[in-house]
């Protein structure tokens, strides 16, 4: 005799497992993306996460969603130095682009690495008083009272009861599907196109320890993430008003260290650096060429700091920019699966 009632049986819903569409180069070159066993990807979970990502219901006054500061058309960042929250208060960090997050193998998120998973990262902006300034209990209650959300949570997670843990799990599932892997340079690596002379020379500068030496922190043809997802002091300041990783670890040796961002999609992600101090790619290149500032924690890879940097010629700077722009992924920007 089966004790389960017919009504309960009808309530059962098994979400459909989702196979992440991994770019060929990622599959060939990198270890597997990180998908937590307690939050596997499902069609329903991702769809729910996407709906939540774009829904202003998560903010205290219903005026901001995650997408407000993480616009798909801007590689999931915004174009401002600092973003203002629902109360008009500005933060002191530049909004980070979001893509290829499942390949952040150390799972440290934010510029200072303070969140140790995507799920944990998603917790913070909702309650941060200078961001969405909401209360998780109130948000959960609003979602619970919503006409659509309870059934969507039921389908994604098997329960009608909504809480912050399930909200962040759903958002994290969606964020793991935000993948950029089809830039011109990806196509070049796949043998589908050729580079211009300038782009090729720019790539050579990027990879040349005696010139750009960018590859030690920003990936390569063999690491198509174009970041090491690690933390470095890249010589922005002699003294630090923002300690970065050091404020999290408490280790003075980490002061002034921030996460290396991917150099994919730079054309969409200005301004640059953790504090958005550089408005253009040229300013970024000039920084590494002539603008390095010494400090106790500057990364040893900033090798020519006593000369201000690697001192690239004007031609090399222009070519390096041409290469960087070849990492722009228009398919990603226009991916309808990632739009509202």
């Amino acid at each position, binding site marked *: 005799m089966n004790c389960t009632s017919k009504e309960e049986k009808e309530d059962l819903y098994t979400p459909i497992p989702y196979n992440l569409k991994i770019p060929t180069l990622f599959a*060939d*070159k*990198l*270890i597997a993306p990180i998908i937590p066993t307690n939050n596997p990807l499902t069609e329903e979970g991702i769809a729910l996460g996407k709906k939540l990502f774009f829904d202003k219901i998560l903010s205290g006054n219903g005026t901001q969603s995650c997408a407000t500061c993480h616009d798909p058309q801007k590689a999931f960042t915004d174009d401002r130095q600092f973003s203002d929250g629902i109360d008009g208060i500005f933060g002191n960090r530049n909004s980070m682009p979001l893509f290829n997050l499942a*390949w952040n*193998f150390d799972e440290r998120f934010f510029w200072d690495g303070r969140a140790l998973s995507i799920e944990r990262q998603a917790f913070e902006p909702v309650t941060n008083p200078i961001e969405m300034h909401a209360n998780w209990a109130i948000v959960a209650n609003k979602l619970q009272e919503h006409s659509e959300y309870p059934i969507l949570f039921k389908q994604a997670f098997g329960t009608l009861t909504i809480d912050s843990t399930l909200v962040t799990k759903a958002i994290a599932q969606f964020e793991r599907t935000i993948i950029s892997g089809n830039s011109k340079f990806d196509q070049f690596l796949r043998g589908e196109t050729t580079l211009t002379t300038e782009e090729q020379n720019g790539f*050579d500068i990027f*990879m*040349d*320890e*005696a010139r750009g*030496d960018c*590859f*030690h*922190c920003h*990936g*390569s*043809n*063999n*690491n198509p993430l174009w970041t*090491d997802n690690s933390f470095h002091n890249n010589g922005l300041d002699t003294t630090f008003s923002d300690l970065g990783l050091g404020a999290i670890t408490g280790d003075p*040796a980490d002061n002034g260290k921030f996460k290396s961002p991917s150099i994919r999609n730079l054309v969409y992600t200005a301004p640059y650096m953790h504090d958005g101090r550089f408005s253009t790619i040229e300013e970024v290149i000039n920084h590494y060429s002539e603008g390095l500032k*010494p400090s*106790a*924690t*500057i*990364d*040893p*890879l*900033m*090798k*020519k*700091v*006593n000369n201000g940097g690697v001192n690239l010629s004007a031609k090399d700077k222009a070519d390096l920019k041409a290469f960087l722009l070849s990492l722009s992924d228009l398919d990603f920007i226009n991916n309808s699966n990632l739009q509202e």
Partner: protein
Amino acid sequence: MKKIISFLVLIIIFSTCKNETDCCVNLSPITVNLKFTHNWNGVALTAADFNSFKFTTENGETISIERLRYLISNISIGNTIKDYNLVNIGENTGSEITFEEVNQESNLLQFTFGFADEDNIDGVYQDLNSASFNVPSMLGGGYHFMQFDGKYKDTNNQDANFNYHAIRAVDRSDPDNLVFEDTSFKIDLGTIDFTNNATIEVKINIAEWFKNPNTWDLNELNTVLMPNFEAQKLMSANGKSVFSLGEITQ
């Protein structure tokens, strides 16, 4: 007839006993743990010692170590082999390797620092790609053998950076015709008699990279060493005295 049968039975029994005795000589395989410990001329060195000017090279430069990771490959204990292992002292990863099913007998312990040419294949090791341990194609591709970064006090007592990066040596005098020299090297730590599960310490004296046989002057050789053919050969020579056998417990 009975006597003959009894005789045959006895022969069979004794033969069986002999086989049982042979069985007992075939000892069960053991587990061996290789443990890499680091020191500076005998003084223990861990990540906690990083980021501080507390070490002095043979040439007299005071240095601060900020990043040190190195690759060993073809790690073998007798017939049991591991392909490669990346040790990252700063992140305290890779410093122990466990070998299962090691024969309980005398086994030779040896490994290669870096990748020998036949294993140094560009882009094929996903975990090393993910760790950004690659060498640019313009230098022949493949992988770093070691990434050792830090700061030293220069002749003016100012902080200066060093990047002691070991790779396969490449002569780029003619960029269209690169000349390579395999600067990986084999470390033979001798034969060990295994009688039980064991832990073997492999000692790494970091100071030797700057010491023997080439006294390393960081004021002369500090950065951009990857494309420096001669510097790579000097590193390779110095590396041969870095590794030694430590304590064995079993």
